[in-house]
Structures are given as structure tokens and as C-alpha cells.
């Protein structure tokens, strides 16, 4: 049962991610990305990490994807956009990222073939539910937690400054 669910969810995730990349209409891309996020949340549930699944939906599907939609609406990217002209630097960076990702995937497959676990699974009896995450977060992972708040502060300040510099000086709309 669990295996069937895993393969269905994984297939949906991969297919919708591919659809997101290949679709020319940005709004459809966002919708497909949301489908991907939902199936990944399903995978988290299969891993007993219900807290992460919920957070994944709340933050990514519920907040960041809305932001994406807003950007698309703000810029009014039409369905018939011409293919985006990548600059040379971006192409090199994209290639680099692809190779890193492929390398990591290869490493994981290679290590698991050799019988070594490439990643640490959840131990028996450890659940990724809210209380266990809370206890770990406020004891063992205290510093990352506090640093996260500083990161969020930087994000707010950055957002406001960017919005001001790029778009404010234009003539105000009536």
C-alpha cells in the first residue's frame, strides 16, 4: 500500500514538475508547481513527517505560490511570451546547478547500491509530529532557530528596499 502510494505521488510530482517547466503559460506553470508541492507534501506524510507536510503546504503552496501569482499578475506576462533570452552567465550557472544536482543524485544511488545509507532515516518511534519537532527546535537546534529570525528580518528589510528602489519613482497611478 505504502509503496503504491509512494510511486503514485512521486510520478505526479515529477510529471507536474516537468509540465511546469515545459508549459509556456506562466499561470499554468504556477498551478502545476502547486500540484508538485501537494504531492511532495503527500510524500512527507508517508515519511511520518506530518509537521513538515503541513508547513510545506502552508509556506510554499499557501504563501510563496501566491507571491508568484502576484508577480505574474503584476507584470502581466501574457500566454504568448517569447522564449526568454538567457544571458550567458545565467546559462553557465544553470548548467552548473544541473551538474551539482546530477552529481548528488548519482552519489545517493551509488552509496545505496554499496549498502551504505546516504541519508539518515527517522529512527523507529521517532515521529515528525509537532511536539517532537518543537522539543528538538528549542533544545538542540536553538541557534538555527534564532538565526532564522534574523534571516526573516533581513528578508523584510530587503523586500521593502527593493520595492522602493525599482518601482516607486515611476509616476504614481491615479
Amino acid at each position, binding site marked *: 500500500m505504502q509503496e503504491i502510494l509512494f510511486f503514485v505521488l512521486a510520478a505526479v510530482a515529477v510529471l507536474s514538475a516537468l509540465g511546469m517547466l515545459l508549459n509556456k503559460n506562466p499561470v499554468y506553470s504556477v498551478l502545476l508547481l502547486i500540484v508538485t508541492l501537494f504531492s511532495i507534501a503527500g510524500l512527507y506524510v508517508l515519511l511520518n513527517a506530518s509537521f513538515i507536510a503541513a508547513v510545506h503546504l502552508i509556506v510554499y503552496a499557501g504563501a510563496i505560490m501566491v507571491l508568484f501569482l502576484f508577480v505574474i499578475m503584476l507584470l502581466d506576462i501574457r500566454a504568448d511570451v517569447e522564449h526568454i533570452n538567457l544571458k550567458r552567465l545565467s546559462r553557465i550557472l544553470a548548467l552548473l546547478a544541473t551538474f551539482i544536482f546530477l552529481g548528488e543524485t548519482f552519489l545517493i544511488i551509488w552509496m545505496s547500491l554499496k549498502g551504505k545509507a546516504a541519508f539518515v532515516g527517522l529512527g523507529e518511534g521517532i515521529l515528525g509530529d509537532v511536539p517532537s519537532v518543537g522539543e528538538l527546535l*528549542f533544545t538542540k537546534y536553538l541557534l538555527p532557530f534564532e538565526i532564522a529570525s534574523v534571516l526573516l*528580518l533581513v528578508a523584510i528589510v530587503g523586500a521593502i528596499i527593493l520595492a522602493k528602489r525599482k518601482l516607486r519613482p515611476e509616476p504614481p497611478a491615479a
Partner: protein
Amino acid sequence: MLLHFAAPFIFVIVAAAFIALNLLISRLLQPRVPSAGKNTTYECGEIPIGSSWVQFNIRFYVITLIFVIFDVEIVFLVPWAVVFKDLGWFAFVEVVIFVFILLVGLAYAWRKGDLEWDKPETGKFARDAAPQLFEEVGTERQQTVQEVTL
């Protein structure tokens, strides 16, 4: 554990089936008589001018960004709230620091005016905007205008 989530999953399917059934029934019952006039964009009988897209205020975007950040904050607060009684003062101090740093962010956005939205420019009464107009009309009229423009 998995069984917990089987129920909402089944629920989603049943709900989707319910919606599809509604649409199907309505599809069978409704007439389909398209006409050019009916299909035009609704603008109170006027023919729409220009594109449906409007240049909207950048504030909407900034608000969404601030929302994303506070959303993440809530996500961090929830596990704390569950275990907070067991962890006591120590966890309390941690969270106060966490919330305080985010409040600095909110205060920054507030100070920079990103939480301000356009207000009507006249004062509390329309009279303050154009006093000479109000002197010309009688007191009764003045009161009516005042009520209407409020």
C-alpha cells in the same frame, strides 16, 4: 499514522465528486444560447476600453512579501506553543527574542510607510476641502452635502 491522512484524502475525493455532480446537473438543466452581446465583458453596459489588466499598486506585492515572512513566523511559533509548558522560562526567553526581532521588521515596514494605504485626501468633512463652496449655500444644504460626502 497513515490512516489519519486517509480520511482527508477520501474526503477530498468525495468533495470533488460532489462538485462535479453539481456541475453536471446544472449542465444538463441549463440552456446554452451564446450571443455576442451576452459574451462581452461586463462593464455596466459600456463597451470596455483597453486591456483588462491594470497597473496595480506595488503595495499589494510588498504586503504579500511581509505576509510570507509572518507566515513562516507562525509556523515556528506553533511547535513552541505545544511544548512550551515543559520547557519553561528558557523557551519563553528564546521566543521573546525571536518575536522581538520580527517585530523590528514589522516596525521597519510600518515606519517606511509600507503598511499605509491611500486615504481620502479631504479632512473629516467635505467642508474643509472647499470652504468657499459651503459658504455660498444655505445651512440646510450644507448639512445635506456634509452627510452625503461623508
